[in-house]
């Protein structure tokens, strides 16, 4: 069974179709990428999948379950984790508290258990802290656990967002331009991190402009342009697909390029 399936997924805004009847299939395991020029609808697609934007048409299934009408927090509990293109950490909280907040959907202690500090709450909280420290170790931020999150440098804030999303132990991790603003060394380290996450069993779906990053990591790529899916396949196939080259470079430049290669 596929982990994520969207069927005819559409989001219309006044005078604009941001996502236009997209059928996206993400099988369990591996790294999947969505690419496309600016304004192709990639972030809207992520917002539709995580429930921040309501679809105008179409359906979303997670692990066979229809989640189209489910609110964001329920989808989080069902296993959709994500990061944001513009970093959205909780700046005033410590790094560790950010990651603990990421585990919110998994924690079950009742109000009574919390208020009376019953053993169930205490042990759950201990486990959550241990798991949060593990997530921080995964992204290499263990030393920063007690710092206010806003004091982290940019690249570390991106990695904190990933740790926070992983604390929820998602089935599907959505990474929205994780390499944006990173230098080549940081990007290489990030690629290693994403690979480790995928190898540990979390399915990764990412949006990214850094083509080197996408081509080297992805098992499968979906290309969007003007909200429509124009191609999908293995990285090598994507690179040589005329429609994709055209979407990025424009028809005239693409034709010139083909002529030059011929």
């Amino acid at each position, binding site marked *: 069974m596929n982990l994520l399936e969207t069927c005819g997924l559409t989001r219309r805004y006044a005078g604009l179709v941001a996502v236009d009847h997209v059928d996206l299939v993400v099988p369990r395991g591996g790294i999947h990428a969505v690419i496309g020029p600016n304004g192709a609808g990639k972030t809207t697609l992520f917002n539709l999948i995580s429930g*921040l934007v309501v679809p105008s048409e179409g359906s979303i299934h997670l692990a066979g379950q229809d989640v189209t009408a489910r609110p964001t927090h329920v989808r989080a509990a069902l296993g959709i984790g994500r990061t944001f293109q513009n970093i959205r950490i909780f700046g*005033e909280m410590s790094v*560790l508290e950010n990651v*603990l*907040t990421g585990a*919110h959907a998994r924690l079950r202690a009742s*109000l009574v258990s*919390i208020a009376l500090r019953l053993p169930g709450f*205490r042990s759950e909280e201990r486990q959550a*802290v241990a798991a949060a420290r593990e997530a921080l170790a995964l992204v290499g931020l263990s030393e920063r656990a007690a710092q206010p999150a806003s004091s982290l440098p940019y690249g570390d804030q991106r990695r904190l967002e990933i740790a926070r999303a992983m604390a929820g132990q998602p089935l599907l991790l959505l990474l929205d331009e994780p390499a944006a603003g990173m230098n080549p060394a940081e990007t290489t380290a990030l690629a290693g991190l994403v690979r480790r996450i995928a190898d540990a069993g979390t399915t990764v779906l990412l949006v990214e402009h850094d083509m080197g990053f996408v081509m080297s990591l992805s098992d499968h790529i979906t290309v969007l342009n003007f909200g429509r899916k124009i191609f999908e396949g293995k990285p090598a196939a994507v690179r040589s697909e005329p429609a994709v080259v055209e979407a990025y470079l424009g028809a005239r430049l693409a034709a010139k390029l083909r002529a030059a290669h011929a």
Partner: protein
Amino acid sequence: MMPAWLASDWTIPAGLDDFLWTYGHLINSLGINGLLALSMYVVLAVGQLSLGQAAFMGLGAYSSVLMTLTLKLPFYVVLPASCLVPVLFALAVGVPTLRLSGVYLAIATIGLGEVLRALYLNVDVFGGALGINGIPERAQTWMIFGMLILALLGLWLVGRSRIGRAMEAMREDATAAAVMGVNVPGYQLGALVASAVLAGIAGCLSAHQSSFIGPNEYGFEPAVTILSFALLGGIGTPVAPVVGAWILTLLPELLRGFSDLRLVFNGLIIVVAVLFLPHGLLGWRMRRRAA
């Protein structure tokens, strides 16, 4: 044979007696305003703004007084029951407005306060403009401070858990909190209901220690005063708004001569707090992990 300290004719030392006679009402006000500050805190802590805390307090006051005078219920029943009516109104206001973002709750709660004031003024059972007199003084100082300590302790313990983390996360970024699995509308409604419980109990205690309640005690003016408690103290911990309430309760006593300017002071404090003390006087925040 009852021990001496339990006997009803046990006497308070003369000096303390005078002190309580003079300041008893002020001491009770410290406790009640502390509870009101906490009721404001709960709402602000999830990133919402309500100006209905005085209205919830009034609902608690009027409903409890009617329970005492008309239904002749004992106080140990009236006190817990005094939160029922405020909670119903919190649900009625919160369910439709919390789906909308930003200022809708604030506006709806101002409206609630004004509607209720008109209701108290015009419906006979609430005593009209004269209010209700002759309320038995059943709220003891120990009850008031007992409730305050209980509320502080509860909010502190809940604050240091996944619930407290979720509340702070919502305050910082509701969208990111939702993606973490926080049921944002649910928490917002829960906070409003909790604040109605606290304000309702404060209203009941206040009504049962002053022998009189009237429609103008629960209007827009006290709502702003309650907001200024939390703005002055801050909302980093539950203690902060209580300290803010105590400062603003004691200040008019110290500045007796300027009692006409009381509202000016409150307004000034809101402006100064917003401009220069975005985290209040007590800016430190509690650590959100228990282990």
